[in-house]
């Protein structure tokens, strides 16, 4: 199994897009080395602007470039690419439905040692509520590449959420189709719906459950908005119970998105596995995932608990 930084793939994909299309412009806010936009900067210095530690200006400048026919990728850490610049995203980018693709790295608890001030755990919730915003949370670096290409090919604002740490490549994935989730594994007792780093954990959990005689489906929802409503309803029709896993607050993220659909269309028992309304802390990425129960074992425990209800 190969292991990659999704952000490395992001930087390399930007170069491919930059070669293909002169309209591609990239912005960063003093984190180009970490986000890997530096790769694009080295190749296309005339179409890269480092705007310093000034994120509000970066996002509104992106809006101005996009309003002048550019396709703009703007990157920094998720913590500084979302809540900090929410007004610029809402009023200047989304209200005008502009081609600003915010690709944030270092999202979630797996930022690790830097601690809670740098662990964006509410970014999906915040951005999901804004009209026109489209959100993708890739599960590995291959999917990150597809997400970046989808953002380039489809009009309007995007938020792509990448992590800091290396991620394992998920085997036997289906082809990435923007707005379409898919089942990585079929099952009939319970469905495990996941995004981002939790997809790999969900697959591991399904294997453990299988050894215990429980048949668990695993669903990858990489596009959080617009979400694949049809797939979620059809899974709920097949599995009586569901666990939704995300490296994000339970409030407002994938769990909420799924529940908003099922409450109306096909009410079943849906249990969340995420961060429960608290701030993170320092630690290695793995120790943090363990601490918050965002692991295969954590998923297994959740599934067993709700199946015994």
């Amino acid at each position, binding site marked *: 199994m190969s292991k990659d930084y999704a952000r490395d793939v992001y930087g390399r994909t930007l170069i491919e897009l930059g070669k293909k299309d002169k309209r591609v412009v990239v912005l960063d806010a003093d984190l180009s080395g970490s986000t890997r936009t530096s790769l694009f900067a080295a190749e296309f210095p005339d179409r890269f602007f480092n705007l310093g530690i000034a994120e509000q*200006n970066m996002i509104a*400048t992106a809006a*101005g470039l996009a*309003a002048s026919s550019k396709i*703009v990728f703007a990157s920094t850490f998720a913590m500084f690419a979302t809540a900090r610049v929410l007004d610029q995203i809402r*009023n*200047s980018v989304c209200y*005008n439905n502009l081609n600003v693709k915010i690709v944030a790295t270092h999202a979630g608890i797996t930022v690790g040692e830097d601690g809670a001030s740098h662990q964006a755990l509410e970014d999906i919730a915040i951005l999901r509520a804004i009209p026109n915003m489209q959100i993708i949370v890739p599960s590995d670096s291959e999917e990150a590449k597809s997400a970046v290409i989808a953002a380039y090919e489809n009009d309007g604002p995007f938020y792509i959420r990448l992590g800091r740490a290396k991620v394992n490549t998920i085997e036997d994935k289906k082809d990435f189709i923007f707005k379409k989730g898919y089942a990585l594994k079929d099952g009939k007792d319970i469905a495990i719906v996941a995004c981002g780093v939790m997809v790999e954990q969900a697959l591991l959990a399904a294997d453990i459950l299988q050894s215990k005689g429980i048949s668990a489906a695993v669903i990858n929802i990489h596009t959080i908005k617009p979400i694949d409503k049809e797939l979620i309803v059809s899974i709920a029709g097949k599995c009586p119970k569901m666990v939704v896993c995300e490296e994000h607050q339970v409030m407002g993220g994938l769990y909420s998105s799924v529940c908003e659909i099922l409450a109306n269309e096909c009410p079943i028992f849906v249990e969340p596995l995420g961060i429960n309304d608290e701030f993170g802390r320092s630690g290695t990425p793995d120790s943090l995932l363990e601490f918050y129960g965002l692991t295969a074992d954590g998923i297994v425990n959740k599934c067993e608990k709700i199946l015994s209800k």
Partner: protein
Amino acid sequence: MDSKIDFIKEKSIQIRTLIIKMLAKCGSGHPGGSLSSADIIACLYFEVLNHSAKDQTNTDRDKFHLSKGHGCPALYAALSLCGYFKEEELWKLRTINGLLQGHPTSRIPGINVSSGSLGHGLSIALGMALSGKIDKKDYRVYCLMGDGEMQEGNIWEAAMAAAHYHTDNLCGIVDCNGLQIDGKTDEVMRVEPLADKWLAFGWHVIKCDGHSVAELLDAFSSARNIKDKPVVILARTVKGKGVSFMEGVLKYHGVAPTPEEEATALKELEK
């Protein structure tokens, strides 16, 4: 030159007249800051900008962004006078089926990007200016801000970046009317000395009387000749200018004229 100035002065009066009429009709909106910007907007739309309502998709033309979005009645008036949309749209301002929203939106012909939340505009104009530099286009970008708006941190982030990237195709104008909702700008949160601030951020600064068409045209013309750095025009204005009972009166920041006030104002503007 005199006939050009007279023509623009005539347009300023038309803009002011339309501002009063549209705000009185809908009963809400911001007359003070619209009237203070009227001469600046008249100079831009009737002389300075290379623009055309008939050629809106042409990306080589100059761009104007109204960062102080609440002053949009002045912009709406100018756009209608230039033929971007019919005058009757002005009478549906701020109404449920109207084209013209309470603050500018990109659905309105002649407007590229919305505004309303203060402080974004200079960054948006910077993005447009950088795009012009990348494509080696000759268009210029103009951005009208308020002096109260100078309190927004985003303005100074944009100011820093515009000077850093030598965007000499960018011209900011500050409508220095000295008042904001809560009172005098000097008392709410002092922004002066503005010239020193912009100079320190690496901009070329021009000061002028924001109600003198001749001075404004001179300022825009000198701005065009500055190379390697952006230019800001600090235009000294009077809030409510042109309607005696509104001039310098705080209340008219965000209170529309009553029918009686409208009649008085229109009589004054006819003179």
